[in-house]
């Protein structure tokens, strides 16, 4: 069963029409797999891609990876059938491209609910994520982030977004700084997750690492990726250090203990701690566990 707030450090795009990619992408260990029916698939191939994806999702055991389907935009004739294909095949989530308003999400939500009913899928079990690809989308972030109970997060899609701003991707990140900041703020205010855009230069792994470090520092939950080579970099950046894990363990333990004693504020390793630190410490431990380093540290 998929969890709305599951760990999503790495969300890897796969062309839904390429059997070789669909066969066993889970071996690379991405947290989420995004099967793309939109940009990666030519207009004349939409049916064929849906057919391939449907059978892949039915046949292949994608193990622990989340199965997200990127549908075509709601301004195209394809998106409703994309949703039916995804829901009938048992996807976990739908990624909505080019989201600009609350209404966009509600439209998709209604169609997903319909498909769930038709397919006999538990109502409400298919989650949504919204890709923000325009200035309008950024401006409407507040209503978008609060639009649906199904919505687990928003993701920046920088290619179209920078075109809308009349610029391009510079590599410095300056053109994305406003959107990134607003996205993380609105996502957190709505209690949902937030994901950064893809990094397309596969030759520049150092530039990629720096960008992952930047968005990690900003508070993003993860990053969209386009190649399995990028996964270890993201996971390494999102893996807490031994010191961070030890501190988080102490914080959780101390808060649990002090709460029962009626103490609200205290110090751990000389730092002032209160209940506000609890969720953060829990997140650190969850990340450590996902990265497979928690047990080792405990055994030290």
């Amino acid at each position, binding site marked *: 069963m998929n969890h709305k707030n599951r760990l999503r450090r790495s969300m890897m795009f796969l062309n839904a029409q390429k059997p070789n990619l669909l066969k*066993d992408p889970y071996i690379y260990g991405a947290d989420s797999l995004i099967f793309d029916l939109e940009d990666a698939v030519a207009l004349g191939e939409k049916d064929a891609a849906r057919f391939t994806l449907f059978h892949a999702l039915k046949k292949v055991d994608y193990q622990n990876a989340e199965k997200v389907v990127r549908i075509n935009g709601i301004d195209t004739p394809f998106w409703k059938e994309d949703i039916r294909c995804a829901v009938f095949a048992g996807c976990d989530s739908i990624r909505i491209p080019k989201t600009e308003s609350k209404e966009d999400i509600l439209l998709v939500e209604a169609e997903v609910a319909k498909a769930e009913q038709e397919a006999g899928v538990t109502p409400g079990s298919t989650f949504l994520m919204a890709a923000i690809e325009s200035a309008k989308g950024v401006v409407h972030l507040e209503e978008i982030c609060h639009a649906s109970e199904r919505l687990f997060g928003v993701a920046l899609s920088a290619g179209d977004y920078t075109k809308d701003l009349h610029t391009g991707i510079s590599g410095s990140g300056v053109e994305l700084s406003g959107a990134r900041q607003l996205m993380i703020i609105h996502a957190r205010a709505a209690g949902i997750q937030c994901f950064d855009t893809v990094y397309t230069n596969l030759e520049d792994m150092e530039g990629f690492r720096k960008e992952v470090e930047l968005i990690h520092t900003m508070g993003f939950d993860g990053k969209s990726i386009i190649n399995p080579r990028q996964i270890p970099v993201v996971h390494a950046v999102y893996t807490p250090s031994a010191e961070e894990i030890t501190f988080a363990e102490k914080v959780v333990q101390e808060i649990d203990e002090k709460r029962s004693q009626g103490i609200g504020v205290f110090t751990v390793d000389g730092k002032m701690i209160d209940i506000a630190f609890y969720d953060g410490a829990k997140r650190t431990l969850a990340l450590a566990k996902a990265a497979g380093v928690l047990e080792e540290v405990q055994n030290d």
Partner: protein
Amino acid sequence: MINAVGRDIPDAVLAETGKTVFQGSRHFDDYTYEKAAVKARARIGGEGSKLEKDLQEVLRKCNAHDGMTISFHHHFREGDLVAMQVMQAIHEMGFKNITICASSLSKAQDELVPMLEDGTVTHIESSGVRGKIGEAISEGKLQGIAILRSHGGRVRAIETGETKIDIAFIGAPSCDEYGNCRAVGGNSNCGVLSYSAIDAEYAEYVVVLTDCLVPFPNFPADISMTDVDYVLKVDAIGDPEKIATGAARPVTDRRKLMMAESCAEFIAATPYFKEGFTFQTGIGGAASATALCLSEKMREKNIRMGFGAGGMSKPMCDLLDEGLVSCLLDTQDFDLPSIENLISHPKHFSISTKEYADPFCKGAVVNKLDFVILGTLEADVHFHCNVVMSSEGELMGAQGGHPDTAAGAKCTIVITPLVQGRIPTIRNEVTTVTTPGETVDVIVTDYGIAINPQRPELLEAAKAVKLPIKSIEELRDIAYKICGEPATLEFEDKVVAIIEARDGSIMDVVRKRKDKNLIALSTK
């Protein structure tokens, strides 16, 4: 008769070849034999030149005849122009029933096929038969039974007299008029002439073909004038672009890198990974990426490699340059940087195939290997490997040094994707056994690592570092879950080739393939 790897070798084949069935990789340990004697000719005085201009004239001088055995090396790989020049001359002169004893055959010899069909060539002994020759043999077009043997096995066959070479043809990148050959110094440099050393020693006649004549003495010589009868100047001996490529780009495929990382992690966890450990790896893909991943472990733990052996490419040469490897023992060069490195680095040594892998000599490099990393086309639950037969039942690969290094190394690691194309690599039974499972210790795949139950100490070492260890049966089950169980290939009764073990016994037989179109390749 059933052999030690469970293969039924027909009595008729044993009778025709005079061979025994394989009885285990150490069965011939301490075996006593007499080395073959070779007919030789004294050349007292002479004119100081062995230079010839006409190939047919040379063939006449070498007493070329029906039924003779001739030999070639494959250092020029797919760029080779020597074998076909010689074979065209033999064909034009009308000789029949020729045995070709080559260190390997590839697409460069595709034009041999009509000569198989018209009876010019009736027997082939080689490490591999790729391209159209493999296809032709699989279709039963060779009159005799082809013998496929390892590099070390070829040396053994020649030394014991099992294979007697009448004329050895050696393509030499540079040569003087008296027969001193070097693998460098010309336009078609191949770096080393390892495979030809045994031919030069044991052939009745030795003919050098070169496109680059240099002044005497062409020293230090890889093949000495003391063994050479004639030197033939020809326009071309090889296509340089197909002999040695530029340096391959570093591997970026994540799947291959994951396998290489697992492999290096495993190596570093074994007791053999210590100062002075010895190592051989294959070329390209996951195997060469393993060398790079391992070098990180070596730097981390401040451990240096004693020697690296086998076919060379840039990654291993880089390790030598960095001082992470004490020396390289080179049997073949796959790219230009490795040839350059051989020329310039004093610790990059050329070795003969006998020194490399001969099972019947008094000491070969393979026996000093701690680790060897090998590829495979198929491997089975008994850890047997198949490196010659395609999933369509066609001969397409070469044993090369696979069985030799596997038998010699303390830890033999086979690295392969679990599924290749849509065919499971790990399966119940390999189509053809080329390397016995008793010599294969570990199989590294993209889905996990299987360790031969005969090596419990390696299993313990791997568990200590949390590698994704699975049983070989588990790997097979995963492969079958993805692809289904492969249908058994269909063959006719006729045996078209034998897979010779390094000791000369029969490991397996290859039968004539049924018509390609009739083979049901679907899964059960």
